[in-house]
């Protein structure tokens, strides 16, 4: 039986030759993302902004979005968004945070319940008050920063410092591009988006570490080889694995995206994006960046742990 390959065996792509193209591309995208983040801003969900989200299902036939919108407008609740949610009789309503503290939010949801009464089924109600939303935003940012830092420390411990810095550059690149994607597509940015970003951090690092491991191994094996050739060699050696793993992960995520229901769709969408970006960055950003960081060759560059391992594998 002939076995399936995503990339052919024994590739010799010249990734390093084109490193300036990929750097320009990554740099531009990252800058664009940052610009988008500050100009368009993120579409913060109620987790961070406060407010109310209600998912209703009409009991008699498909929902009339226009009617629902005008009924809600009569309640004077400020900015109200109404959209179909996965099925013709499912509607997602979002109301901005009401002025007047925690009680005002509860009053708003009471009004909505009275308006629709028994004609709809309240599938989901989420109300986040002003105080909690502030705390959630703080915890979310903290989570991303702390995890990046923790991973930096781990990689620092296991590799030379250039690897740690390179891995963080590649990972921050992925995080920035993901945030840019959220800004451009105006996707709801919620707690689960933070979870998605952290998972992307984990995944992207995972990918990067595999490539780095190989670079380190090759550095010991081919002491005379110029760094650029060596980086190319390591990327090509791991290319089959990188693409295979991305593919299986994407298969699983696509299945979640298609069949997992509306509630986690934006979550899985962000992860699919993250896997694509993470795979790209571990090939085109993480490895070339080592060249820029002056990764030094020779026996003095490898730490004590590295030499011990060499002895084991030899």
């Amino acid at each position, binding site marked *: 039986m002939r076995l*399936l390959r995503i990339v052919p*065996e024994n590739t010799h792509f010249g990734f390093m030759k084109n490193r300036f193209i990929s750097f320009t591309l990554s740099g531009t995208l990252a800058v664009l993302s940052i610009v988008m983040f500050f100009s368009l801003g993120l579409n913060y969900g109620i987790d961070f902004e406060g407010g109310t989200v209600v998912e209703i*299902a009409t009991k008699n036939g498909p929902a009339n979005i226009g009617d629902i919108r005008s009924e809600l407008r009569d309640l004077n609740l400020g900015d109200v968004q109404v959209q179909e949610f996965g099925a013709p009789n499912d509607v997602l309503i979002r109301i901005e945070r009401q002025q007047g503290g*925690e009680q005002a939010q*509860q009053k708003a949801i009471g009004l909505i*319940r009275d308006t629709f009464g028994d004609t709809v*089924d*309240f*599938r*989901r*109600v*989420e*109300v*986040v008050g002003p105080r909690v939303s502030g705390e*959630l935003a703080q*915890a*979310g940012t903290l*989570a991303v920063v*702390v*995890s990046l830092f923790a*991973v930096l420390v*781990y*990689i620092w411990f296991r590799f030379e410092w250039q690897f740690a810095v390179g891995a963080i550059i590649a990972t921050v690149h992925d995080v920035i591009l993901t945030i840019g994607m959220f800004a451009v597509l105006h996707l709801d940015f919620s*707690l*689960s988006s*933070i*979870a998605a970003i*952290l*998972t992307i*951090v*984990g995944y992207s*690092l*995972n*990918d990067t*570490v*595999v490539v780095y*491991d*190989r670079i380190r*191994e090759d550095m010991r094996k081919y002491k005379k080889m110029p760094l650029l050739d060596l980086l190319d060699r390591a990327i090509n050696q791991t290319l*089959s*694995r990188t693409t*295979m*793993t991305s*593919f*299986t*992960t*994407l*298969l*699983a*995520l696509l*299945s*979640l995206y*298609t*069949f*997992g*229901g509306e*509630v*986690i769709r934006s979550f899985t969408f962000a*992860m699919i994006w993250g896997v694509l970006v993470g795979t790209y960055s571990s090939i085109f950003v993480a490895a070339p960046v080592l060249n820029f960081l002056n990764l030094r060759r020779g026996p003095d560059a490898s730490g004590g742990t590295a030499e011990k391992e060499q002895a084991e*594998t030899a």
Partner: protein
Amino acid sequence: MMLYFARWKVVSILLVVFAGFIFTIPNFFTRDEVASWPDWVPGRQLVLGLDLQGGAYLLYEVDRGSYEEKRLQALVGDIRTSLRQSEPRIGYTGLGVKNDKTVQFRLRDTGRIDEARARLKDLVNPLDASLFAGTQINEFSFTIADDGLVRFSFTDEGLAQRIRSVVDQSIEVIRRRVDQLGTTEPSIQRQGEDRILVEAPGLDDPERLKTLIGQTAQMTFHLVDSNANVQQAIQTRPPAGDLLVYSTDDPPVPYLIDETPLLTGEDLQDSQATFDQRSNQPVVTFRFNTSGARKFAKVTQQNVGRPFAIVLDNEVISAPVIREPILGGSGQISGNFTVQSANDLAILLRAGALPAKLTIVEERTVGPGLGADSIEAGKIASLVGIVAVAVFMILAYGLFGIIADIALFVNMVLIFGALSFLGATLTLPGIAGIVLTVGMAVDANVLIYERVREEVRNGRSAVSALDAGFSRALGTILDANITTLIAAVILFYLGSGPIRGFAVTLAIGIVTTVFSAFTFTRFLVSMWLRNRRPSKLPI
């Protein structure tokens, strides 16, 4: 040699897999069936999160402002009593609450400052728990200036301790109320300094739960002041010693009642919802405890013919006229009740009043319909995802793909076994975590197999290529998985609710993945090698 397994290793690998199966099995039976099993059989099942089984997540916060106000008002009363009612009287002016934070007044005679200080010292209210701490903590502290200005305010520790005990008492009261609703295992916990988290799974009507928890349910009995003019009181202000309150009727009826209650909810012993024998309307009956009954008997004896008001949270729910002395210590409230509202009031009266007002700061409720849909969607998505990955692995690696799939299956069993054993909660993002693990679990296999292919290309023999593949991939697998594990652990500590569910499955998935993809796969490969002794690898 990576492919040799000592006997004890074989036994422990098989034991781990066996344990995974044992702990997963209870999930295929109903709760009742599991309950009938003998104790020594593991019977723990996965707990479904609120987003999957439907239910309410309600985060309450003690309303500090209103609680401080209530305490300060009480302090004003105590100061008045202390200075005016005990002999010799000490004169003062302008007693009241200032800026919501302090109680302030001025002594008329600055020559009696020391005398006043001695009396006021008894009002700082030392708190019980501080006796153990060694240093004394008072609820209030006060200063007297030379010009006779007295200021009382909360001490930070005193207020913090007060709020803590308010939270403890509130949890008790909420538990008594929620338990009577008869839902499955509601969880009520303190969160932070002044918050209470209520999680009630499988609830059809979250609104009812909210009304039950949200009411302070402070019930008081007052005499109605029928001599004063209500209309005049509305336009100007109520006469001294009276309170203006409204009834729950539509439109509300105003009443002037005595400020001091005759009896309070604390004097009650029991309360039940029932039907009035004559009108057949739902009513709430109550019974006072011994001292309450004695007080009630005395009051009703002295006030036959006068109306009295039953007040719940500053609203009159009923204002009957006392027709005859009530000596038995029990009575009934006939407001405009429905069966449910009568029931709820009886529950509230039985459970007692909350010591402070609670406000909802975060609410997430999921109806049972959406929960069931999510479970269904999660099942389909995981099945499709797993099958797709499994098929792909066979297409890519042939026989070794099958081995990877067996390892994947064992991995799933271990994840579910571990989740059940730990009593972890499975949420929709948790399912996403499992599906993601599926995608990433085969990564370890891919790493090993790609390495083996390379070694074969480099001209190694079957056994030595496999051995090198496994040993070289190990470091990479560990590095790669530990980084993801770090992200998952941080997510667990900083996340909440469903996100935590995701972090748990992701973290467990990583640990089981290293075992199944590395150790278990290696074990299967070594068995295959021993039986077939191949000279070439089908990879």
